[in-house]
């Protein structure tokens, strides 16, 4: 059973998936996801929820992440291997 915070994070997970379904080539950092992707889906969650949602999506293999040399991370839809 998910608590309120867990439900909010799951909503964030779904919103990111929905954004990537519409924009499969998009990629951005956690900030960009919070500032542009999620408001486009009608959500404005705390940055901690965005962080957790991206982590969940990465664990599920839905997204891939690129570590940036300045310490940041870029997220994008996982590319299917052929």
């Amino acid at each position, binding site marked *: 059973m998910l608590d309120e915070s867990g439900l909010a994070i799951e909503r964030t997970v779904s919103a990111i998936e929905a954004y990537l379904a519409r*924009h499969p*080539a*998009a*990629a*951005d*950092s956690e*900030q*960009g996801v919070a*500032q*542009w992707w999620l*408001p486009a889906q009608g959500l*404005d*969650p*705390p940055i901690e929820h965005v962080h957790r949602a991206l982590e969940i999506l990465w664990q599920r293999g839905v997204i891939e992440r*690129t570590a*940036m*040399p*300045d*310490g*940041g991370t*870029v997220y*994008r839809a996982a590319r299917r291997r052929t």
Partner: protein
Amino acid sequence: MQTGALPNLIGQSEVFLRAVGLIERMARFDAPVLIQGETGTGKELAARAIHYLSSRQQAPFVALNCGAMPEGLIETELFGCERGAFTDARQARTGLVAAADGGTFFLDELDSLPLRAQVSLLRFLQDKTYRPVGSMRVHCSDVRVIAAASPRLQEMLVAGAFRDDLAFRLNVLMLEMPPLRERGTDALLLAEYFIERHASHYGVAPRHLDARSREWATRYPWPGNVRELDNLIQRALLLSDGKCLDFSLHAAEAGVASPPGMPPPGRPPSQLQSYSDARAQAMSSFERHYLEHLMTAAAGNVTRAARLAGKERRALGKLLKKHGLDHASFHEPAHA
């Protein structure tokens, strides 16, 4: 006031709305952009707005802070490398230019880019082609480059520490993000926006600014700009109770001196403070005014300022950080 399709850009001052108008215009044309502004003025926010309003909005936005990169790795990180290009290159890897293909590559703190990397970037901007380190093959990448720099860039150009041909190449479209102190009452709008946002995120009741904070916010010079205001609001919201929010108290606790013409917060000016409180208040106020004067005299050069003040550079750096003073905001604009 939120600005149309740009929900993250809050303000109604003329100088800010002019910048927003330029962002919307620049989004329509696929040319390089150079964004200038002090720390905390929203340069990355502006770069993202240009990207997400542009025809590249479906493609990647890749941001890199040039100031946080090891100098020896910059070319490999930008353009990738072939297997065996150097000792640690056990396999070929793509660079950030390839990762941003089709979209926008944002280079923050451009003024920190080492000279060698400036040459590589200039070559890439000229024809959008590059060679990964150790490779003979030329690759092509379709990215729009947006760069951001502090006011220090002008000084570096005059001193020859930054390539002017690269600056010219990037400065096709120039956007200046105004400092908060020049944005009239935008600090109040932003404060109310941050209160509402953080109250919702942290699950606390939203509050209004009290009269003292409103006056404080419009008089304070905000050296850390919007970022400083955001932090102050969060701190005040989470660490205090009451119907109204008095962030001037929290600013004083963080060692920020009251703006000119405003008495220290917390008690009426005629009420006597304890000796230690009055001393701490006076010390903090003295430190801040001294540092501002010192950094102005040294034109933002911390090493020169440390010499003038007879202090160790590191100790001076700590003091500047304590008072939220950014050396870059004291740099003098270059005169042609």
